């Protein structure tokens, strides 16, 4: 560790399993306010483990809120652009939370525990912002509680994840499918087990009481050893999500971008009577968007990192919001914002990397899609 890294580490928050990660030989780095494992062996090795086998991520940095009360359903439905009416107990929903302007406050997962109780999972960097946002938009008989410190969150992801999770808990996994979850008592306390993830593979996310996290982690490796389970760092979390075109808040979308611009218009329930940002979004839908998030492939041997400028016909027209090397495709890929009229698949671009203009092309998203067995 260099001097500046040490300084960094002391100011940053540590995950509840930090010691376990040290023992596993993690290389750490900063992720927002957190000091997290970037990789244990190598990003590419861990990426391939999740695509072909099974890996576990410690994502306890994520925030969790409970919204309770007889009016919880109505209140949550005003906060999010997607529709809580699609939910019933045991189902989860992905949604942006928007400002009146249509700009994205955060992207969240909403879990319906009961019609009067919702769990909202938010991005770590937005915990305080979201809590204030929700708190100031409460009405009727509903209360919001920040329970982020009470939960550890582990994501078991990959084609072999079902085998590992099935051995860990005495639950019937055939009852759970994509975006479904179950809540049950176990020797680790109350567990919420959801079939959700951020990798593009089959996978599960396990919420457990923070004090139980070390025991659960060790049990996971006991049952997972035979399946080749490995710990996975934040490096591979980024390459996996980017291949699958899952957007990262603060990068691919911000308060300055709308769900339409970010290409997630499908998460806006246009028919819903009212929600924060509806007027602005309806207007933007009618008038058309000015800029759009696109996926590109870099044609030369270079990576277009976040912040790189995108050029077209000798003019700077856009900016890269995420860029990496795709281990699955063995290509340099990325996302960025462009004027809507340039955002066509097949359009060639140039991206400025280290002072040189490098060729790129807009391609279809996602870059990678898992083959589903019918």
């Amino acid at each position, binding site marked *: *560790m*260099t*001097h*500046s890294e040490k300084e960094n580490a002391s100011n940053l928050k540590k995950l509840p399993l930090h010691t376990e990660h040290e023992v596993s030989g993690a*290389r750490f780095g900063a992720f927002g306010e957190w000091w997290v494992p*970037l*990789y244990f062996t*190598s*990003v*590419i090795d861990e990426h391939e483990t999740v695509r072909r086998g099974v890996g576990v991520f410690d994502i306890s940095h994520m925030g969790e809120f409970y919204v309770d009360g007889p009016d919880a359903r109505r209140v949550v439905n005003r906060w999010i652009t997607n529709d809580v009416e699609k939910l019933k107990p045991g189902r989860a929903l992905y949604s942006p939370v928007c400002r009146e302007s249509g700009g994205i406050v955060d992207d969240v997962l909403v879990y319906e525990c009961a019609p009067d109780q919702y769990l909202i999972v938010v991005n770590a960097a937005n915990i305080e912002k979201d809590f204030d946002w929700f708190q100031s938009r409460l009405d009727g008989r509903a209360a919001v509680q920040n329970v982020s410190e009470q939960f550890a969150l582990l994501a078991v992801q990959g084609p072999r994840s079902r085998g590992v999770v099935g051995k860990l808990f005495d639950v019937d996994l055939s009852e759970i499918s994509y975006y479904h979850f179950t809540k049950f008592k176990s020797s680790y306390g109350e567990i919420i087990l959801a079939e959700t993830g951020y990798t593009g593979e089959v996978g599960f996310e396990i919420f457990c009481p923070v004090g139980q996290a070390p025991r659960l982690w060790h049990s996971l490796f006991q049952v997972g050893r035979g399946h080749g389970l490995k710990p996975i760092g934040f*490096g591979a979390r980024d*390459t996996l999500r980017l291949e699958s075109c899952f957007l990262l808040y603060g990068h691919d979308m911000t308060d300055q971008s709308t769900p339409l611009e970010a290409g997630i218009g499908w998460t806006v329930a246009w028919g819903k009577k009212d929600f924060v940002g509806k007027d602005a979004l309806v207007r933007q839908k009618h008038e058309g968007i000015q800029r759009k998030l696109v996926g590109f492939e870099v044609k030369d*041997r*270079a*990576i277009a*990192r976040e912040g790189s400028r995108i050029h077209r016909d000798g003019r700077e027209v856009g900016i890269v919001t995420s860029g*990496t*090397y795709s*281990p699955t495709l063995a290509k*340099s890929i990325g996302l960025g914002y462009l004027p809507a009229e340039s955002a066509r698949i097949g359009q060639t671009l140039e991206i400025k990397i*280290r002072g040189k203009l490098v060729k790129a092309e807009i391609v279809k998203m996602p870059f990678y899609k898992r083959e589903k067995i019918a």
Partner: protein
Amino acid sequence: MNFPSELKYTKTHEWIRKEERTYTVGITDYAQHEISDVVFVELPRVGETVEQGKTVSIVESVKAAFDIYAPVSGTIKAINTLLESDPAIVNKDPYQKGWFFEIVPTKPEESESLLRKDEYEQMIRHGAER
């Protein structure tokens, strides 16, 4: 980590194998470990003249891009094109198949600033900065 005693080293983690009229240059085991997952290598051109301490090559790993510096001033005599087709060889075999370029030094006296194995190891132990 492995640092062969017949090589010389730089503070910026390049290794140098001195041959009669040329120096072969690569990056150390420590450097490849820090860089991790090499995915692209940008090499200098054969015939290019380079200056000690200046960037001659760029290594892109999944996590970041890293500059590789000329250990001495001179002319590039050969480059390892294998790094273009199989960049991961830098991680697997940094001292043999993973060499970067050969340089004909024009200021042989500059090589006096290069480190011996024990000096380089000591520097790493005291916390190296890239």
